[in-house]
C-alpha cells in the first residue's frame, strides 16, 4: 500500500497536466476549426513565393 502514496499523486498530477493542456488549447482557439485542421494536414503548400523587397 506504500506505493499508493507515490502513485496516486503521480496519476493525478498527470491527469491534471492533461486538463491544463486542454484548457490552454481551448483558449488558444484550437477547437475552432476542427474540420479545417483535419484536411489541411493532407495537403502540401506550394513553394513560398519570393518575398518582395
Amino acid at each position, binding site marked *: *500500500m506504500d506505493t*499508493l502514496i507515490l502513485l496516486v499523486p503521480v496519476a493525478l498530477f498527470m491527469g491534471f497536466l492533461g486538463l491544463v493542456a486542454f484548457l490552454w488549447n481551448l483558449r488558444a482557439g484550437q477547437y*475552432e476549426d476542427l*474540420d479545417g485542421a483535419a484536411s*489541411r494536414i*493532407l495537403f502540401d503548400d506550394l513553394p*513560398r513565393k519570393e518575398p518582395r523587397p
Partner: protein
Amino acid sequence: MTTAARLAPEATAGCAHCGAPVPAGARFCCAGCEGAHDLVAGLGLDAFYRRREGADGSLRPAVDAPAIDFTPHVREEKDERTIELMVAGLTCGACVWLMEQALAAEPEVTRARVALSTRRLTLSWRGEAGRANDFVALLARLGFRVAPWSPACLRATEDAEGRRLIRALGIAAFGAMNVMMLSVAVWVGWDMGEATRAAMHWVAAMIALPVILVAGLPIYRSALDGIRAGRLNMDMAVSLGVLATTFMSLSETLRNGPYTWFDGATALLALLLAGRVLDRAARRRARQAVAELLALQEGTVTRLDPDGTAHAAPAANIRAGDRLLVAAGERLRLDAVLETGEALLDASATNGESLPRSFAAGQALPAGAVNMGAPFVARVTAAAADGSLAGMARLLERAEQAKGRFVDIADRAVHFYVPIVHTVAALTFLGWWLGVGVSWQEALVPAVAALIVTCPCGFAIAVPAVQAVAVGALFRRGVLVANGTALERLAAADHAVLDKTGTLTEGQPTLLPGDWTEAELREAAGLARASRHPLAKALAAACPEAPMLPGVEEVPGRGLIAGDRRLGSAAFIGVAGPDAGLTLWYAAPGRAPVGTPPASQSDGDGKAVAFRFADRLRGDAPAVVRGLRELGLSAELLSGDAAPAVAAVASQAGIEHWTAQATPEAKAARIEALRAGGRHPLMVGDGINDAAALALAHVSACPGDGTDLAQTAADLVLRADGLAALPGAIRTARQAQRLARQNITFSLVYNVIAVPLAITGVVTPLIAALVMASSSLIVIGNSLRAGKDAAWTP
C-alpha cells in the same frame, strides 16, 4: 495512365471544374468554368481536382460579378490591410487549399487563412485597400462566392456559451476519469484496509467537489433560470440529483462508509455535458449556414454626395435625408421617396404582386423592392434602424419570444416524472430512518441511490441525442434547423399554408414560349448578355450558349443597342400599344414580321419580336403538395397577388383552397385563425409580407433564396432543392419524435425495474454505474436511427 486517359472519365461525368452535368463530349458546362480551370492550371494548382471530394456544380463562377465594394470592410493595421470574408459553399479541405494557395500566389498577400468550419477567410496584404476588390474578383473567377463578414456571421460562430460547455465537459471528463480510477480500486480492493479506503474516499472527494462545482455551472444556471421563470425543467432534476449524490457521498466519506458515489456524480455530469455539446454543435452548424445565406444578401448601397459623386456605403450608415442611387436590378434596402422621373419596382417581396409597379416622382417607395427599370435617385426617409424593415424585425422578435415558451417533450415528461421520483426518494429516506431505524446518514444512501438510478440521464440524453442526429441529417439534405424546438413543432404540423411568389413559383421571370424562332432568341440573348437588367438576365439564361455580341450599348431603363439591332421596352423599339407587363421587344433589320403586329416602326424596315416572361411554377411544386397531402397536411395558397395569377398557380400545383390579394396583416390573421381553431399550421413563405405569418405559425419554413426577414422569421430554411425537401423534413421530424418518445418510454421502464433494487439498498455504486451506462448507450444507439435516410424515400 496518361493524362488524357485520366481526364477522360472526368469529362464524361461532368464539368471539369464544377462537376455539373454537361452535354456528351463537352469538358465544361460554361465559359466561366473553362476560365476557372485555366486559372487553376495556370497557378499550378491543378492538384485541386484530384484532391477534392465530390463536386456538385456549386463551384460554377457566377455570370455577373458581385457589385459590392469591399473597401469599407478593410481594416488597417500599420502597413498591413486585413479583411475578413465569409465564403459560401466551402465544402472540403481541397477548396481551402485552393483558395489559400491562389491568394498566396499574389505578391502582396502576406497571410491568407480559411477556417473550414466557420467558412471565414482572413486575408492580409501590403498595399492599397482597394486591392480587396481584386482579391474578391479572383475568388469569384474560381467560383467562390464571398461576402463581408457580418455581425450576424460573428454571432452565429462566436459561441461563448458553446465554449463554456466544452470547457465544462473537459473538466467533468477529467474528474470522472480520475475519480473512477479511485472508485475501481475501492470496488475490487476487497482486502483493502479501512484506513486506505478512507484515504481513497478523501482523495476522490477532493477531486470531485471542485469538479462538480465548476463543471456543473451551465446546468445549475439553466435550472435557476427555470425556477425564476416558474418552471420545473430537466436541468432542475439533474442538478438536484448531482448535488444530493455529492452531499450523500461527502457524508459517507465523513463517517467512513463502505462506498462513495462521487464517480456517479461526475460521470453523470460528463455524459450530460457531452450530449449538450453535440446538440449545440449540430444546431450551430445550421445557424451558421443561415447567417451565411443572409450575409450573401447583405451589401452596400450607393450614396450620392451633395456634389454629385457616388460612394459605396453600408446600409447601416445611411441617415434620413441622404440621397441614394439605386441601380437596375438592385434591391432598395431603405424607406425612400422617389426624387425625379419614374421608377419601375418589383415589389413581390413586400406585397406578393408578381407584376412590377411604376412609381412617379414624390411617391414613397417600399423598402425591399427590386428596381426593374432604369437607375433612379431616391431620398431616404428613415435610417435603417428606424425604417419599416427594422420595425418588422422588431415585431418578429416579439413573436419569437412568445414561441420560446413552447415546452418540449423532455420538459413535459419531466413535469410528471420529477415529482414522482423525488417523492419516492424522500419516502425511501424516511422509511429507512424512521421505519427501519438506521442512522440518517445510512438512510441517505438508498434514498440517493434511488435518485441516481432514476436520474433523468436517459431523459436528458434521449431528446438531445435524437435532435442532434436528426438536425445533422437534415443539414446534409439542405434543410437548416436553426431553432431548438422546430423539429418537434414540425412533426405536429397538420395544415400547410403556402405563399405563391418565390415559394411555389421561382420568384424571378423566366421566358415563356412565344412565336419567335431559335435564331432570334440566340441573337437577342447575345444582346441581353451585356445587361444586368432582370429581364435581360432571364433572356440570357434562356439561351446560355449564345455568344455575347460585341459593341453593345445600354440605354439605361430603355434597352440595348448593337449596330442596328435593338432590345428593350416597347417605347424604345417604337412599337405602339400597351406595354404589357414583363415583355422585351427585339428589333433587327430585315426580319419578317412575327407575332404581335409591328405597328409604327421607327427605323425603316425593321420588325419587332416580343419575348414575354412570367414567374413560373417551381418544377417540384405539384409533387411537394402531393407529398404534403400524403403526410396528412392539407394545403392552402395565400398570396398578395391578383386573383387570376393565384388561381392559375393553385390549379397547377393542385391546391384547392386559395386566397388572393392577402395583405401581410390578412396573412397573419389567417394563421391566427387557424391556430385558434386548434390546427397546427406550417407556413411556407419567402417575402417580407410573409414574415409576420411565418413568425406566428406553429412552424414555418422559407426557401434559401427568400428575403432576409423571412429567413430570420422562419424555423427552417430550405437551402438545397427548394420545396422538394419539405415532405422529407416532415418525415424526419416525425421519425425523430417517435424515437424521442421511444427513448423516454425505455428510460421509464428501466427505472421501474431499478427503483425497487435501489429502495431495498441492494444497489452499489458499481451496479448504478452499469445501469446508467447501459441505459444511456441503448438510448444513444436508438437515437442514431433518426439519421437514417429511410425518411427520404417514401
